[in-house]
């Protein structure tokens, strides 16, 4: 039987989505269900003097109204933060509470003040409009660096200087020296702008308390239902965990924004307990804009020092990370352990130091967004490298080749120890860039570019060679860095008596195609048909435990947990097979779903062995019946996918509009189970990365109003903004997990943004432009051309 690993098997999950039979949270209607509408602050920063709910409660159909005072009186804690980062001096980070409904003051536009529950969504909305809140306006602080000003308003009265923590990593003395002594120093000051995630499915949550069983069920649009259950029961509502069931049914995209435990989840559960009926809340898109955690928002100064030969000598980074008004679940680790630790990139830089301050502002909380920290690190490195190449008059590809870490497989050669804490697992960086250069036909492009310039046309090419830390994460390592959770994964492989297999995984699929990829792995390893494998996920009642899906971890960590359980199945199966065939286990080999006595044609099939396990009449002595194994897998290390992305653009000299002509990518994500799905992940990631470069950006005005709070005001790439993507890959297996896989979910987002910006800067090089703030809107590009033209003329 030919292996189905590495085959582009069509997706198992497609049929239900294609026929309109998906089951998303908002599709669910429970008997007796009520609907919630949340009263949100229109002000970025204001004291709440009073909340008058009398008119709202009088609305026909309104069942109940709760305010921040009710939450405070019920002594319900806020939603917690899952990662502790300490100040440089060892003090614990500032962790102000994020209550389910605020009672004292609002801290961002969208902060939740009250909830109105009614028989219909329309009545709830009517009621919400009639809740009258008396606010006393306070001055707001919006931009990260402004929050540090001595006279900045305080978002939380007990957090001085609005500082959550300050943090550093790397050797400061060595780095200062390296930059000081460098032959050439390239500097860049830039904003890695705030993004709004915008999964197309808005968030939703249904709380359902059942009086008879005293059980709470939460249906939620989450990437990690078990984590939500744990936080909900242990930290927020103090409910017994075994009486709480969390279901994340089909989820319409997450991109990080559905990782955090949101107040609405806990609120719906609590409200349901109060009114003893199911309560559903579905975000309107406008609410998604205001309350889905945002991403990025770094203001950075970076310097890279080179020797005369173009070797990088040092990298010095200073960043202010804007965390928004409250700490979201993983917000604190994004700018630190997912960003600072990636500053080695693919390069041998001997000295690196980052100094980072994380601040509160009167804006939406920030958390992981596709790539989370790694796009910010890659942007910084890759922009510096392209700029340095231009300044030193070296080819940008050459400059990278000169600085790449030499190949290491992590087996015969050890992993690569970076200057910023991580140890890369395996890498071979030169071939990805070579391949990508071939794909784009680099020399030909440079000729074409020169010719085009003669005609006044502005073509540009931009590079990005990236690395990311995926397969998140070894628990002990992240624990020592402040994580308050382990980051293993679990999987249960239940072989049914007829040899059909149900696999219960803690990873959650919201577009990644686990139901297919995981089934491919299981079918291949057990030698059975894919149709005989069912992947179950997203329900804490059926799946024992799980840490969910993010950080490109599902196959590397979740897949490894499946492999562990499969090993246990095969081990037990071999015992049964040996007994049935009356030989020693060592005389057997397993292939294509059969245990065969070596050198003979005597064999027994997987199905027969399974049946024997459940009908153990003729059975090995002392062996337990049944065939059902659970495993937890805690990875030994992160995985480190890498690659080279190249963008080719043409800039309209009249309007500044950027046309993306080609996008070429060569990635190495380790072994690939389903190339079609991996490519799909890359496509989506690349589009997202291009979105940041050219289109997307959250805009707040000075008073803290979110100006870009609808699809009319926030631009995302549409089909006709993008070219077909040209992909290829190399394969450097991960040495420390059984499938040799590294993860592919975020690669595109991480790599694409700097490639596109670098391409535009390259196109504008005749104007001497060295930086433009993202997103590179026609207006900004046009202005950059004008300014530089004028300056050049003076």
């Amino acid at each position: 039987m030919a292996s189905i690993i590495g085959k582009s098997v069509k997706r198992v999950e497609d049929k239900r989505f294609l026929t309109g039979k998906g089951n998303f949270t908002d599709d669910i209607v429970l008997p007796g269900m009520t609907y919630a509408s949340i009263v949100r602050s229109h002000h970025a920063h204001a004291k709440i003097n009073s909340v008058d709910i009398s008119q709202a409660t009088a609305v026909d159909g309104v069942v109940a109204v709760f305010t921040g005072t009710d939450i405070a009186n019920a002594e319900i804690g806020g939603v917690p933060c899952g990662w502790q980062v300490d100040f440089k001096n060892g003090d614990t980070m500032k962790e102000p509470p994020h209550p389910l409904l605020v009672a004292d003051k609002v801290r961002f536009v969208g902060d939740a003040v009250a909830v109105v529950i009614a028989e219909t969504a329309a009545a709830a909305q009517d009621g919400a409009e009639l809740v009258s809140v008396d606010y006393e306006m306070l001055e707001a602080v919006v931009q990260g660096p402004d929050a540090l000003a001595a006279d900045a308003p305080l978002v939380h009265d007990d957090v001085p200087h609005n500082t959550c923590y300050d943090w550093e990593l790397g050797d400061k003395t060595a780095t200062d020296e390296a930059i000081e002594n460098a032959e050439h120093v390239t500097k860049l000051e830039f904003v890695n702008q705030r993004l709004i995630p915008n999964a197309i499915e808005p968030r939703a949550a249904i709380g359902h308390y059942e009086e008879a069983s005293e059980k709470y069920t939460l249906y939620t649009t989450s990437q990690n239902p078990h984590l939500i259950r744990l936080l909900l029961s242990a930290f927020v509502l103090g409910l017994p965990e075994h009486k709480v069931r969390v279901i994340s049914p089909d989820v319409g995209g997450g991109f990080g924004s559905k990782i955090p435990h949101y107040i609405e989840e806990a609120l719906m559960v609590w409200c349901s307990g109060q009114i003893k009926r199911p309560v559903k809340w579905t975000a309107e898109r406008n609410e998604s804009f205001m309350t889905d955690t945002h991403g990025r928002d770094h203001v950075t100064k970076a310097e890279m020092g080179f020797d005369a030969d173009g070797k990088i000598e040092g990298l010095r980074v200073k960043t202010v990370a804007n965390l928004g008004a409250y700490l979201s679940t993983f917000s604190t680790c994004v700018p630190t352990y997912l960003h600072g630790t990636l500053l080695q990139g693919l390069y041998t830089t001997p000295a690196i130091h980052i100094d980072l301050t994380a601040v509160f502002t009167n804006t939406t909380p920030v958390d992981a967004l596709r790539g989370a920290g790694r796009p910010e690190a890659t942007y910084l490195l890759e922009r510096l490298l392209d700029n340095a190449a231009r300044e030193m008059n070296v080819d940008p590809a050459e400059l990278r080749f000169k600085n790449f870490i030499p190949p290491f497989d992590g087996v015969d050669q050890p992993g690569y120890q970076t200057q910023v804490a991580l140890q890369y697992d395996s890498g071979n960086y030169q071939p990805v860039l070579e391949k990508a250069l071939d794909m784009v036909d680099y020399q030909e492009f440079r000729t074409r570019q020169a010719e085009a310039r003669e005609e006044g046309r502005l073509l540009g090419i931009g590079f990005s060679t990236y690395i990311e830390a995926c397969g998140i994460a070894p628990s002990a390592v992240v624990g020592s860095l402040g994580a308050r959770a382990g980051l293993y994964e679990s999987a249960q492989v239940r072989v049914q008596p007829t040899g059909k297999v149900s696999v219960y995984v803690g990873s959650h699929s919201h577009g990644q195609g686990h139901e297919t990829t995981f089934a491919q792995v299981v079918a291949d390893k057990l030698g059975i048909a894919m149709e005989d494998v069912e992947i179950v996920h997203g329900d804490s009642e059926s799946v024992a435990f799980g840490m969910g899906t993010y950080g490109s971890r599902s196959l590397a960590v979740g897949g490894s947990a499946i492999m562990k359980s499969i090993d246990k199945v095969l081990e037990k199966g071999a015992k049964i097979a040996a007994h049935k065939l009356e030989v020693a286990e060592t005389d057997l080999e397993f292939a294509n779903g059969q245990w065969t006595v070596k050198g003979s044609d005597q064999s027994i099939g997987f199905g027969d062995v399974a049946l024997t396990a459940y009908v153990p009449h003729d059975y090995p002595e002392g062996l337990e019946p049944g065939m059902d194994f659970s495993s937890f897998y805690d990875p030994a290390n992160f995985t480190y996918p890498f690659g080279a992305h190249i963008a080719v653009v043409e800039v309209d000299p009249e309007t500044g509009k950027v046309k993306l002509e080609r996008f070429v990518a060569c990635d190495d994500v380790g072994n690939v189970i389903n190339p079609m799905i991996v490519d799909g992940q890359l496509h989506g990631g690349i589009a997202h990365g291009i979105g940041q470069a050219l289109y997307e950006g959250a805009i707040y005005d000075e008073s803290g109003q979110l100006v870009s709070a609808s699809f009319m005001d926030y631009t995302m790439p549409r089909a006709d903004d993008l070219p077909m993507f040209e992909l290829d890959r190399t394969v450097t297996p991960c040495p420390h997990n059984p499938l040799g896989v590294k993860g592919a979910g975020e690669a595109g987002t991480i790599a694409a943004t700097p490639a596109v910006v670098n391409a535009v800067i390259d196109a504008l090089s005749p104007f001497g432009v060295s930086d433009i703030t993202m997103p590179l809107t026609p207006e900004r590009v046009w202005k950059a051309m004008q300014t530089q033209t004028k300056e050049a003329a003076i």
Partner: protein
Amino acid sequence: MGVPISVTVNGQHRESEVDSRTLLVQFIREELRLTGTHVGCDTSSCGACTIIMDGKAVKSCTVLAASANGSDITTIEGLAQNGELHPLQEGFKEEHGLQCGFCTPGMIMTAVQLLEDNPQPSEAEIRHGLEGNYCRCTGYHNIVKAIYHASRKYKEVSHG
């Protein structure tokens, strides 16, 4: 106060009374419980709610249920015939044109009209035809391929 409406949805005659402010998408999802039609925004921007109404692809979040009175509607649930997937559904599967599946019904219904108007579209024409629909998962690459795939099938069907 209900407004009486009578519509044909996926070949079935339906009569109901709707609130004058009820949107067609709410009627389809909540009253008819055809939840394949999705809501992704409140500004008619995302296209997740696209259905076919009297032969035209429309965003059902921009139509009042009351004004749909007398119309003939097809939703994603009505596209497959006798258990056979429509060529577009087939195309999306073959070319991996969906990931999370949330935008998918709207994409497909939009593409139904796109191919109706232009059975053999170029890549650029497909991309242009999708400009009212957002997808956050696929980068559109495989959606474009899926529609192209289906258009070749249409050709086979119509030209033998």
